[in-house]
């Protein structure tokens, strides 16, 4: 359908590559692509690191509090709508938001959060990190459980300290999981829609427009079916390319 003009009522009209040409000139869509890229930047690495730290925490024999695992996992089973409602009040801008109140308590200056073009996207990515860290934690946790104890015992006998064990045993054995989780996180970050729709509705000044939000606007409020199809196809191709490139890198890694 990406080669047609269709408003769902009239017969689809063949346009050739016109929809695709329009993407290149659509300033808002280009901005949404940049925003999605920025979002990945804010989201992917922090969420993986946080997930790994949480997994190490719940797996550690030193940690006696097993129930914290459920605390970390709780946001995963909660819907984006609920979390967005919470985020809306936590990070409300001006003098009244809850986080801003805490900042004032610590004698820091209140932040504009959703009213600022740079901070709005960061706050949204924080929401996604909060929601997704639990899933990544579980993946890492399962992988950690699969590392045989004998490796650590051997290392202890060889006189390795905890840090060496972490760097030389744990992290290298987790490498396949990291690869899988990386693809997962990138895919998530390209699909972000709910929080951008519910909290900021793309604003301020289109700084939280994401690709999926653009597709939503064009397809379902603007009745531009063909154009939205072209954008959907583009989104899919982007995810596919990134996955394939990463796969390639991973292969090279294994061969080396």
């Amino acid at each position, binding site marked *: *359908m990406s080669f047609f003009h*269709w408003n*769902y009522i009239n017969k689809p009209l063949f346009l050739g590559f016109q929809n695709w040409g329009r993407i290149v000139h659509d300033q808002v869509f280009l901005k949404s692509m940049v925003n999605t890229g920025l979002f990945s930047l804010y989201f992917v690495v922090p969420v993986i690191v946080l997930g790994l730290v949480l997994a190490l*925490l*719940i797996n550690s024999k*030193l*940690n*006696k*509090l097993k129930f*914290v695992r459920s*605390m*970390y*996992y*709780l*946001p995963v*089973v*909660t*819907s*984006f*709508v609920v*979390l*967005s*409602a*919470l*985020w*809306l*009040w*936590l990070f409300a801008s001006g003098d*009244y*938001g*809850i986080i801003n*109140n805490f900042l*004032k308590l610590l004698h820091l200056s209140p932040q504009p959060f959703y009213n600022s073009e740079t901070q709005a996207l960061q706050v949204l990515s924080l929401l996604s990190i*909060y929601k997704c860290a639990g*899933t990544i934690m*579980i*993946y890492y946790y*399962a*992988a950690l459980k699969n590392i045989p104890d004998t490796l650590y015992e051997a290392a*202890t*006998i060889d*006189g390795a300290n905890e840090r060496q064990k972490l760097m030389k045993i744990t992290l290298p054995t987790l490498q396949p*999981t990291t690869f*899988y989780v990386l693809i997962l996180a990138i*895919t998530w970050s*390209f*699909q972000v*829609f*709910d929080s951008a729709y519910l909290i900021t509705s793309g604003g301020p000044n289109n700084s939280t427009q994401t690709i*999926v939000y653009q*597709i*939503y606007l064009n*397809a*379902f409020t603007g009745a531009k*079916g063909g154009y*939205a199809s072209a954008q*959907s196809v583009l989104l*899919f191709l982007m*995810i*596919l390319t990134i996955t394939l490139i990463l796969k390639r890198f991973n292969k090279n890694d294994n061969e080396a």
Partner: protein
Amino acid sequence: MIRYLKKTNGYKYPGNITSYRKRKRINSVFCSLFALIIGLLFSFPFIMMISGSFSASTVMSDDVFFWWPKHWIIDNYTTILNRSYFITWIANSFLYAVVPVLSTVIISLILGYFFEKRRFWGRNFLFWCFLSMIMVPTQVLAVPRFMLFSKMNLIDTYKVILLPAIWDITSVFFMRQYMKGIPNSIEEAAIIDGCGVFRVIFSIYAPMCVPAIASVAILKFVSQWNEFFYPLVFLTSENKYPITVGLSSIMAESSSFGLTMAGAVVNFLPTFIVFLCLQKYFIEGITAGGIKG
């Protein structure tokens, strides 16, 4: 042997065994404390949500603890339950969640069985076609699905939510993976005793796959309950909304803190209960279904 062990410990930690234990205990307390602090940070929004839903404050104030009620009241809940459609939304959400759970379990059992235990022409090719569909994100499918459903005049009906959710590939994959662990001899014995295909699936395999069924059902329930994009796009009349879309319209129309939080609690509660009761299956489901994919 014991002397040898003590020796290695002594070698690694200069000093005697007691100081080693002491240090280990301090490390343990420190580690637990760190875990607890992060846990509290993670649960703070939820604490705020639950306490806020009982508070009377309608607007934000610059009091740091305005979300902690001075008097605990349930007015927010009575208001929100009396709001038009609210009960309908909850019922809809259950409909949109429970029907797909049942159908997904049945379909994934059948397909999982055929893909794992039966050989037929093109089996692996077909399975890989299915698997590659996992790669396509749901939002990409939204536009083509919208076109298809509007052609079929299904927009704004219950069917439009239920049809796409009737089964999913991840569940089939997971079920197949689980059935791999069950030996064929059981099925062969059943067939010799005169079992038909469906009896083999539902009386022989289903009871053995209970953990897998539980995982599939729970993950499906939560994802359906939390679904937001599809209902938002495909439904237009308010009496067909699920609770997620309903809550978003409450968020849009009222700026009352307590009311929004009460709605959020109602939205959050079913998944929370499911999660608390069946935690084990969650973790199994995610890890077994995901890692090999």
